[in-house]
């Protein structure tokens, strides 16, 4: 095999502060398909902007009045209004009527609360399990892990039928406890696989040294392993939050009036209505999407691992 030849000159930006995903994914000087110049930037910019256009247009529509949103031809230039964003939470249902609460304050709170609690629970239970699977392999360790991920890949509709009946029997349908328990389970396989992939990457040297010095297993876990995977914990938590935040079918069937989440409420808004107030819906969506888009940007380097549930690292 030939030795690695001297690295070709990198483009100026590659060494600059805006380090690309390629480097973080493992593009070293010895691998990858090389650099391109501003010509490629131009091509990529055109393609990316077209690709992102549907999201951009919805965000634009959020600032349009009812009539502007329905205008033909579509208006690129219009006088922006913030009334939709207020209207999401509070508006009059008939012309000149009293403005009243739309319930979306509760729905946004529910989405956040349910996702937050279930992700924290899944993280606590799942991280322990991941550490167990990583450091104390059981007989048939891989079989357990396969089975655990299989439960996550099952069609939601298959899982929900028996759970729906079970929840009705024990009175958990429409309660926070019920939906949080379900989402915790839903997040668990993902958490275990993600966290195991992070634990597997740690070098065992430090742990061995600590054990030789007489540290207990508990101390090794809390003082040595856990601090090294804080970034992984954060990434796993955020992915879990997004998955739960976006989830629709479980919420549709199991959330009651009091525990309804935003996706269910949005689906009901467009459901049967003939005259959808598109500006208003776009504003709801914008509020719903912005946290996810921001977080996607922060998560860029862990995206591959996250979207494949930790099965593919690089």
């Amino acid at each position, binding site marked *: 095999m*030939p030795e690695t030849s001297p690295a070709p000159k990198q*483009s100026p*930006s590659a060494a600059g502060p*805006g380090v*690309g995903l*390629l480097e973080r*994914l493992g593009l070293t000087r*010895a*691998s*990858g*398909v090389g650099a391109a*110049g501003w010509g*490629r*930037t131009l091509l*990529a910019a055109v393609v990316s*902007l077209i690709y992102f256009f*549907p999201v951009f*247009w*919805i965000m634009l529509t959020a600032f349009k009045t009812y009539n502007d*949103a329905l205008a*033909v031809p579509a208006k690129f230039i219009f006088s922006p209004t913030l009334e939709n964003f207020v209207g999401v939470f509070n508006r009059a249902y008939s012309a000149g009527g009293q403005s009243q609460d739309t319930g979306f304050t509760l729905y946004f709170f529910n989405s956040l609360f349910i996702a937050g609690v279930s992700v924290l629970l899944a993280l606590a*239970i*799942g991280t322990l*399990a991941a*550490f167990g*699977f990583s*450091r*104390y*392999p*059981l007989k048939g360790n891989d079989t*357990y892990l*396969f089975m655990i991920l*299989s439960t996550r*890949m*099952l*069609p*939601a*509709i*298959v899982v929900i039928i*028996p759970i*729906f009946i*079970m929840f009705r029997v024990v009175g958990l349908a429409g309660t926070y406890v019920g939906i949080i328990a379900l989402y915790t389970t839903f997040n*668990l*396989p993902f958490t275990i696989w993600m966290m195991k992939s992070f634990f597997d990457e740690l070098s065992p040297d430090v742990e061995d040294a600590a054990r030789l010095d007489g540290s207990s*297993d508990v101390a090794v876990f809390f003082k040595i392993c856990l601090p090294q995977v804080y970034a992984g914990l954060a990434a796993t938590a955020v992915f879990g939050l997004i998955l739960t935040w*976006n989830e*629709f*079918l479980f919420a549709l*069937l199991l959330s009651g009036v009091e525990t309804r989440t935003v996706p269910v409420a*949005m*689906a009901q808004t*467009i459901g049967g209505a003939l005259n959808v107030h598109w500006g208003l*819906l776009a504003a709801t*969506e914008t509020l719903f*999407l912005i946290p*996810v*888009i921001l977080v996607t940007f922060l998560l860029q380097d862990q995206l591959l691992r996250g979207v494949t549930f930790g*099965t593919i*690292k*690089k």
Partner: protein
Amino acid sequence: MTIADPALGSNGIGRLLSPAWNNWPAALLLFVAGLPLSIALLPSAISFWVSAALAALLATTLVVNAWGRYAGGLLVTPALALLFVMNIFPLLWSFGLSFFSYHANRARAPAWVGLDNYAKVLTDPDIWDRLHNTVILATMTVTLQMVIGFLLALMFAKQFPLRRYLLILVLTPMMLSFVAIGAFFRYYYDPTFGLLSQAVRLFTGQPYILMNSVWGARAGIVFADAWMWSPFVMLLVLAGLVSVPKYLYEAAAVDRVSAWRQFWAITFPYIRGLLLLALLFRTIEAFKLFDLPFILTQGGPGTSTETIAIKVYRVAFENNKTSDSTALAYILLFTVIVLTNLYLYFASQRAREA
């Protein structure tokens, strides 16, 4: 027999009386003796808490004792227990239910019917029709995703200025919710003010109704789904592209190998595994397609875009034919489990090679 358990050491009685936290035989004895005593002697409200405390003591001693020898087992127990209660048990129960005749909205007790539900489901032309719809949609969307994702990956495989920021624009759609995306495209496909209709009108002068024809509705769903998930394929292919050692390309350049041959001889072997994983993963997801057609078309026009998952939903929750739906669900489940295991097999093989 090994004497790994200190609580069961040589000095039997002395060990049994030692107040160690891992002395589970003593705790068991206390529990067995204390439970009937407390129930018999104390008022029920107090005896409940006494028995709970005794049970907690027993559990603690068992956990402390098992620690060290079964640490792995203990760590994974809560997770496995939760998965069992919330996932495996309900599935087993519904498997049992699939052999009975049962309607969730009627008071009548389930009646044993054997394999009738499966026979009914498998001979129902409706089911085959929905399966046909699902296969059409899945084939179209997965093919489109693989092609677009691959081309996007080729575009982003090189390093260039502003790459990181442009990449995020393309990666965003797959992180969004199906409901939001369904709502987007309802708006864009609208016959009067939708952008699609307006664009077509520029050329034909007529408004364009996409969702009224069978293939139009299918194309609408496939376009939205492929737009959402092509970035996923891109991400996987990109990971393969960046792992190719650069000296291979340099050697190829020295030998003046054509770009076409260079791709098949050098690049392709590095992305083959990931392409297969992307294909399997997306096929599994496409097979489960529910939210997008549910929001965009509600299965229409007619039932031409009603996927098998939507059919299960309708049978179970709109027709309340609970046991029929569980039989149908099990056929769906079996298919997905086979595909999932195939996926995991290739994924673990890849992880081992790396």
